[in-house]
Every structure is written in structure tokens, then in C-alpha cells.
């Protein structure tokens, strides 16, 4: 009996690596610490009422961002471990198997559990405020989306200490990801972690499309909508077409592994190529899902900090939509070298290049937004400016990669690794950081201190180039991606060492950002944003106090212009004041515990499926079903009214303190 328990424990818990024991200890300590602090300060009720059950889009947004930053840390540590391993030949810091797990989780976490939630966080913070709405279209669904993402991410991360991490690459190509070559539970964690959070992503996509279509303030026609909202709309359109593909693909892979299916195995007529096509039909649009909102942020930030209107607004909108549509015609460029033949390769090469056209137009529009402007270099603007040369390099190398016959030499090499990191860090992460700095005061009511932010900026930027420029060279020297180690005879050592140094510089940049946030919290009284409009903003979110009250707008604004708030400020300066409608009672959604509880059941079910334990997944699924039934049939009083008097009191309190 004891032996059996021992044997079970040794396969259930990941053992044998000091790093994993370290993780075990730190997870245990962090958990004990959190429980202790919450109990000691009697904060359990506060946590439950204000956060775990909230349906307020602003709080959901903040939770998304917190989780994303946590995941950025985890993914970043993975990256640094990999770079340490590759700094010089024959390093034995990581066993090849462990290395494979780390690059797999690094990729998956950074795309799905860092970029996506950071993006959803910014959607949640900014979109309802930009369109003059009091909430998203489906607040309950919004909270559910967050908790599904969170539980999916936690399930995925759990694999590090329980059962073992996936190690077949972040896209898990079969046959490597099939039972025959990956018999452990790692792949199951991959499938269920992504699947659960993917449901949340799809729901968010639907939610924001409906929000943008139905909830814009009166007068805000499509062509008066803020450009970030447009970018969110384009991105969500891609989500609703791309994510169902991912869901089905993962479900089929799960059936292969769990139910003895043969969709993607070679025997019994299955075909791994099918998986590769499907995963990239989601995977390539996914890149544009995350980058288009970043384009929206750059447009907002560049125009605000140049004190100018965005140049070529309509072009920008058309360009974003063109990119969204074209993103579905490029997936085969991920396997030019798979022998599809010249016809297919030529088609996908050209359709990939065509994306460079709208993207190029956007760059020109940003430049001419700054042209004849007054550029101030606050941290959000610095990130936006740093993005441009960066993205030009990513674009150049992207065009190089899209030339199919030349791609035969770049494919799977470090050149490719450098390219997509340029696009994803320089394009996406820089954008979200700009957005985070830009909307920070709207979220928390104070601006972040600039000095540590600038240090962070320079460390990040210099580190970025030092890390990735050598990788282009390494690719041309024949170094392939996902190598766990290499020999001295290759001559790759100096460049790899430089690249590792760059990665650590970025790590220091991240630490400066943590410091910046801590200093901001410490001095928040001094940094308080009393105006609600610290950057002289153009759009509606800056017309209300920071942080926004629960109901966002005391009275729904009447929109007349594209940059309505900017135009309004102009008019006010001239002494023309709009007549404010009277304050009325405000209809709001009530908090609900169902999203959280239902996601916990999803987690339990997912965990059961990972190990194939019916005594976990059956109760889990039943729990999910009960939550759905409760929501559908028994929760009728999901809303309430904030009385007009209370709104007046709140408004007076916030605005009175100015």
C-alpha cells in the first residue's frame, strides 16, 4: 500500500529537479502568505465582494492585467532560463527534456496567457469608457470570460509541479503531441489549459462586438468612433472566426489522446497535416488579434502626445479591417517547406506580402500624425515611438520571410525566432505597455512616476535590440530554433552570449517597471490625477473622473465630433458649455458568484480530464451544468438601480475634491 502511494506520488508530483523543488516551496510560501494576510487583515469578505464576484468591467480589466503581468513574469523567467542555457556551448543547466518543456510553456504562456489577457484587460478598461457606455453588453459573461481564462492559465501552470509540463512546442504538432510520442499528461494540460481559457476568449470577442455595435453613446456614428475601439472591433471579428477553429482542433487532438481517435495520427487514415493546417488557420490570425489593438493604442497615444488629430483616420480604419480579413489568407506560409507545390506557395507568399500594404500605410499615417505636432515624451509616447523603427525591422524581415523560395533558408531558424519576437515584443508588448501607462490613471486614479519608467524603457529597448539582432545573424549561420544546446565548432557562441545579455537587460527593464508601480503606490497622493484628464486626451474616457465611478458616466454623453472630448474642451475654452441633462437613477448589473464558481468547476473538470479521472471530471461537469441551470432559471434579480441622489452625491464628492 505504502509503495503504491509512493509510486503514485512520484508520477503525480514532478520530482528530480532542484528548480522544481524551489518552485514548490515558493508556491507553498506564497499561498500561505496570501491566506495569512487575507485572514489577518480580515479581507476575505472584501476580496469576495469587490473582486471575485464583481461584474464591473473596470475591475475585471484590472484583474486581467494583474494576471497578465504575473504570467509575463513566469514567461520571462522561462525565457531567461533558456537564454542562460544557450549563452555558451555545452551548458547543462537544463536537461533537454526540461528545456523542451520550458520553450513550450514560454510560447504558450506569452501568447495565450500574457498577451491575450493583457489585451482583454485594456479592452475592458478602455472600450466602454471610450464609447460612452456604462458597461459591456454582457457583464456576467465578461466576468465568466475572465475566470475561465484565469482557471485555464492556472491549470496550465499547475503542470510545472504536478504531472509534468507539455514539451511538444507551443503549437503541439502531431504526431509528436500524440500519445505515442508524448505519453505523459503534459499535453493534456496543454489541451485543457488552452481550451478552458479559449472559451473565455471567444466569449470576450462576442461580448465586445455586441458592446461596440449596440452600446455606443448617441451621436457616435461608426466614423466618429475612437480608433482604439475600431481596432478592438477588428480584433474581435478575427476572434469570433478564429477561436472556434482552435476549440475544434484541440477537441480533436483530445479525442485522439483520450478516446483512441485517429484524426491526426498516421495509422487508421488520420493525417497530422490536417492539424497543422487547422492550428495555423487559428494561429496566424491570432497574431493579428493581438497586434491590431496595439495599432489602436499607438494611434491614440501618438495623436494625444503630438497634440494633434490622428492623420488619415479613415485610412487607418480601412487598413485595420483589411489586415483582419487578409489574416485568414496567410496560414500556409508557416509551412512553405512542406512540399505544397509552387502554386500553393506562390499564392500564400503573395497574400502574405499584401498585408505589408495596409501596415505600411499605417506607419505613414502615424508619422504624419506627428508631423506638425508638438511631441511630448511621456512614457506612453516613448513606447509608441520606439515601436516604429522596431516594427519597420519586423516588417522588413517579415517581407523577407514571405518570399517562399527564400523562406526555405529562414524557416525554423533563429532568423524566424528573431522576426516574430520583433513583431510580438516590438509590436504587441510595446503597444500594451504604452496602453498600460496611458490608461493607468484612469484605472487607479494616479499617474506612474516617470523616472523609473524611463529607466525601464531604456533597459527594455536596448536589451531588445541586443537580444534579437544577433539572432537574425544566428539564423543565417544555420542555427535552428528549439536547440537545447550546441557545440563550440558551430561558431555560434559569441552571438548567443550577446543575445543572452540582451535578454537580461530586458529582465532588468521589467524590474524597473515593478519598482515604478511600487513607487507609484507609495506616492500616490502626490501623483494623484485630480483632473481625470492628465494627458489632455481626445476621447470620452478622459471626460470623467479618475478612477471612473462604478457607473462610468453620470449622464450619457451626446457625441458630436470624432474626438468629442477634445472638441468639447475647445468649446469650453471659448465659453460655450453644453447643457447637461438631469441625473437619473442608473441601471446596473448585480455582482454574481456564478462566474467564479462555474470556472472552478471547469478547472476541476479539466484537471480530471488531464489525468483521466472520472471522479474529478464528472463532478466538475455536473457542477458546470448546475451553474448554468442556476443562471438560466433561478437568477432573475440580476440588476439594481443606483438612485439619482446617490449618483449626485458621488459626483459631488469626486468633482468637489478637484
Amino acid at each position, binding site marked *: 500500500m505504502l509503495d503504491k502511494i509512493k509510486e503514485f506520488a512520484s508520477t503525480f508530483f514532478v520530482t528530480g529537479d532542484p528548480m522544481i523543488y524551489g518552485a514548490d516551496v515558493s508556491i507553498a510560501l506564497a499561498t500561505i502568505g496570501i491566506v495569512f494576510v487575507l485572514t489577518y487583515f480580515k479581507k476575505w469578505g472584501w476580496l469576495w465582494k469587490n473582486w471575485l464576484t464583481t461584474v464591473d468591467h473596470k475591475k475585471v480589466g484590472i484583474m486581467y492585467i494583474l494576471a497578465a503581468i504575473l504570467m509575463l513574469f513566469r514567461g520571462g523567467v522561462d525565457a531567461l532560463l533558456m537564454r542562460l542555457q544557450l549563452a555558451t556551448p555545452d551548458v547543462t543547466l537544463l536537461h533537454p527534456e526540461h528545456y523542451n518543456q520550458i520553450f513550450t510553456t514560454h510560447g504558450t504562456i506569452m501568447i495565450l496567457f500574457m498577451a491575450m489577457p493583457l489585451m482583454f484587460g485594456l479592452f475592458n478598461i478602455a472600450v466602454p469608457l471610450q464609447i460612452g457606455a456604462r458597461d459591456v453588453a454582457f457583464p456576467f459573461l465578461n466576468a465568466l470570460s475572465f475566470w475561465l481564462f484565469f482557471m485555464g492559465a492556472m491549470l496550465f501552470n499547475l503542470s510545472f509541479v504536478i504531472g509534468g509540463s507539455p514539451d511538444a512546442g507551443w503549437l503541439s504538432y502531431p504526431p509528436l503531441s500524440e500519445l505515442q510520442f508524448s505519453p505523459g499528461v503534459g499535453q493534456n494540460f496543454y489541451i485543457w489549459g488552452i481550451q478552458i481559457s479559449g472559451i473565455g476568449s471567444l466569449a470576450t470577442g462576442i461580448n465586445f462586438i455586441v458592446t461596440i455595435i449596440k452600446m455606443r453613446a448617441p451621436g457616435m456614428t461608426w466614423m466618429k468612433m475612437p480608433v482604439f475601439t475600431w481596432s478592438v472591433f477588428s480584433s474581435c471579428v478575427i476572434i469570433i472566426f478564429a477561436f472556434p477553429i482552435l476549440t475544434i482542433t484541440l477537441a480533436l487532438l483530445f479525442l485522439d489522446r483520450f478516446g483512441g481517435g485517429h484524426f491526426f495520427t498516421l495509422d487508421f487514415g488520420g493525417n497530422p497535416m490536417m492539424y497543422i493546417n487547422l492550428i495555423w488557420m487559428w494561429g496566424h490570425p491570432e497574431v493579428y488579434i493581438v497586434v491590431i489593438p496595439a495599432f489602436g493604442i499607438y494611434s491614440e497615444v501618438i495623436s494625444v502626445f503630438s497634440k494633434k488629430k490622428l492623420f488619415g483616420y479613415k485610412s487607418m480604419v480601412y487598413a485595420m479591417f483589411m489586415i483582419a480579413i487578409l489574416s485568414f489568407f496567410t496560414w500556409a506560409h508557416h509551412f512553405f517547406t512542406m*512540399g505544397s507545390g509552387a502554386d500553393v506557395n506562390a499564392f500564400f507568399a503573395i497574400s502574405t506580402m499584401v498585408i505589408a500594404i495596409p501596415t505600411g500605410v499605417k506607419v505613414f499615417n502615424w508619422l504624419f500624425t506627428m508631423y506638425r505636432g508638438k511631441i511630448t515624451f511621456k512614457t506612453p509616447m516613448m513606447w509608441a515611438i520606439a515601436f516604429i523603427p522596431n516594427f519597420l525591422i519586423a516588417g522588413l524581415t517579415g517581407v523577407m520571410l514571405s518570399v517562399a523560395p527564400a523562406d526555405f533558408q529562414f*524557416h525554423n531558424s533563429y532568423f524566424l525566432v528573431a522576426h516574430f519576437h520583433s513583431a510580438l515584443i516590438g509590436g504587441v508588448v510595446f503597444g500594451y505597455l504604452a496602453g498600460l501607462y496611458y490608461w493607468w490613471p484612469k484605472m487607479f486614479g494616479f499617474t506612474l512616476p516617470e523616472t523609473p519608467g524611463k529607466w525601464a524603457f531604456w533597459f527594455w529597448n536596448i536589451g531588445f535590440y541586443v537580444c534579437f539582432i544577433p539572432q537574425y545573424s544566428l539564423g543565417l549561420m544555420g542555427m535552428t530554433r528549439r536547440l537545447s544546446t550546441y557545440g563550440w565548432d558551430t561558431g555560434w557562441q559569441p552571438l548567443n552570449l550577446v543575445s543572452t545579455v540582451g535578454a537580461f537587460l530586458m529582465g532588468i527593464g521589467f524590474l524597473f517597471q515593478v519598482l515604478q508601480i511600487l513607487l507609484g503606490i507609495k506616492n500616490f497622493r502626490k501623483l494623484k490625477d485630480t483632473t481625470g484628464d492628465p494627458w489632455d486626451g481626445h476621447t470620452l474616457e478622459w471626460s470623467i473622473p479618475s478612477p471612473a465611478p462604478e457607473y462610468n458616466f453620470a449622464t450619457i454623453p451626446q457625441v458630436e465630433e470624432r474626438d468629442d472630448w477634445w472638441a468639447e474642451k475647445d468649446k469650453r475654452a471659448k465659453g460655450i458649455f453644453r447643457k447637461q441633462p438631469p441625473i437619473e437613477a442608473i441601471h446596473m448589473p448585480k455582482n454574481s458568484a456564478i462566474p467564479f464558481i462555474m470556472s472552478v468547476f471547469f478547472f476541476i473538470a479539466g484537471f480530471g480530464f488531464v489525468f483521466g479521472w472520472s471522479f474529478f471530471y464528472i463532478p466538475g461537469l455536473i457542477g458546470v451544468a448546475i451553474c448554468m441551470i442556476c443562471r438560466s432559471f433561478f437568477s432573475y434579480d440580476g440588476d439594481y438601480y443606483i438612485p439619482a441622489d446617490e449618483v449626485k452625491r458621488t459626483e459631488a464628492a469626486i468633482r468637489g475634491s478637484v
Partner: protein
Amino acid sequence: MNKKPKAIIALVLTVLTVALLIWTCFYAGGKYVVFDPKGPIGQAQKELIILSTSMAALLIVPVMILTFFIIWRYRDAPDNKAKYEPHWDDSKKLETVWWSIPIVVILILAVITARYTYLLEPSKPMASTQKPVTIQVTALDWKWLFMYPEEGIATVNEIHIPKGVPVRFELTADAPMNSFWIPQLGGQIYTMSGMAMKLHLQADQEGTYFGSGANFSGEHFGQMRFDVEVQSDEDYKNWVANIKKQSKPLTKDGYLALAKPGLSQTDEYSSIPDGLFQDIVTKYVVEGAPNPHGGHGGASTEGSSKSGSTDTGTMSNMNMSGHN
């Protein structure tokens, strides 16, 4: 606060970083194998890379300079007298210009790409008066098996080819897919179970070239490297004769042992079992069913449909791990 010292620090840091990067990328060891081709395919790819890069750079470098100029010219500084027009946000003329520039560039690039795509299609035989050498490549866990059907020999993790003779690679895998890459001779192609891909390359200079697996295939994927020895015709013939004389034969059992996951040194075999490559390719063909990959462009070996169906029976026994 005085802004100037800060600007100087930033400038110095930038210059230092750029200098460091240029130094490491050009002088610190390593060989740019992609830019040092030793055969016509690699040469054509190098030319194409340079051509497409310069085309894209033609657009991007001026934009880069324009970016720095605009940011400098319109910075908000007290002594900056640049024109400020907050409401100037539309110019049909300018927008027409920058919609059309990328369109023209991409149009030209698209034509070039399409031409080269057909020209360099890897399954297309090379124009040559010489009779090509055929090498059948099998990616295994985690080693490469190379069979020379005409010479009747096989090697593991090493390739010898004669100089100036086209080589016709037929590629498959008996393990998770990999990618076969010899950068100095030309681009890579995937190796996949159940398919026989084709890749035509040629080496025009004697020497030892670096080759590797490029697509992640599991635990020891990083060690799937091999050397390509390009020799004179005479040396090549001697090498073949030597192997015929000195090495052991590769048997079916020997293959099964080799195909088990694990690493391997270089090795040579004096003979190969009949139809082994064909057997590996058709391993998964279900009897009576049409080959699912039969219609895949350039992916089937000549005669595969004939020998494939007859050998399938023996192959199902050879499938060591079976399906799960």
C-alpha cells in the same frame, strides 16, 4: 532640470549599442552559411534574399530616416519654432502617395517571388547533363538514415556526394516530422511519415558542409546534425567501393534497432534491404484504401503506388510501437 546631459547619455548609449551589435554580427565568429552558398540552388536563394531585402529596404530605410527627422523636428521644446497645426489630419494627395508606394513595391516583389517559386520548386529536377545521384533520407528519433539505392549502401548521420552532380533527395520520416537542411547547398524541406518529399540540390565545390534537422522532433532533436562531404567523382567512387568492401550490411532487424529512439554516431552499411525506403513511406497505408497522400503535389515517389500495396502486409509488423 537640464535636459541636455540626459540626451547625450541616451545618444552615447544608442551609439554604443549599435556599435556592439555591428561588431558582434560581423566579426565575432560564426559563418554566414546562408550567404556562402556552394551550389546553384543556394546561390539562387542567396540572390533572391538579397534582391527581396533590398527591395523592402528601399522603402523602409527612408521611412526610418523620416521617422527620426519628424520626431526631432516636432518635439515640444521651448526653442522649437516648427509649425504646429493641430487640426491638419487629412490630405488625399499624401494618402494616395503612400497607398501607392507599398502597392508598387509589393507588386514587383510578388512577380519576382512567383517566378522564383516556380524556378526553385524543390521537387523539380535540376537541369544538368549529369545523371543525378539519388539519396533516400529518413529522419529517425534522433538520427538521420541516408540510403543510396543505386549504390546499394547506407549511412547514418553523414552524407557523401560527388561534386557538380545533381542530387535527388527523397525524404521521409519514421518518427515525428523533421526538416532536412543543408544551408550552403539550399533550403530545407520537411520530412514526414507517410510521404516521400523531393528535394533537388547540387554542390559545385568540394568541402564539408553543415547539415541539420530544423524542425523540433522531441528530446534530442538538437543533436540531429550531420556533415555533408562533397568529393570529386573519383573520391566519391572510392568511398562507395570502400563501404561496399568494409562495412556491415543493413538488415531489416538492424533497421528496427536503429529506428528505436536514441542517439547514434555516424555509421556505414554495405547493403540495404530491398524496398526498405518504400516500406517506410507506405508503412501507414491501410490495405485496400487509396493512399491518402497520393495526390499531394510532388510528394510521391515514382513507382510507390506499385510496390506500396504489396509490401504493406510486412510493414504492419514492422510498426514497433503500433497505434495507441
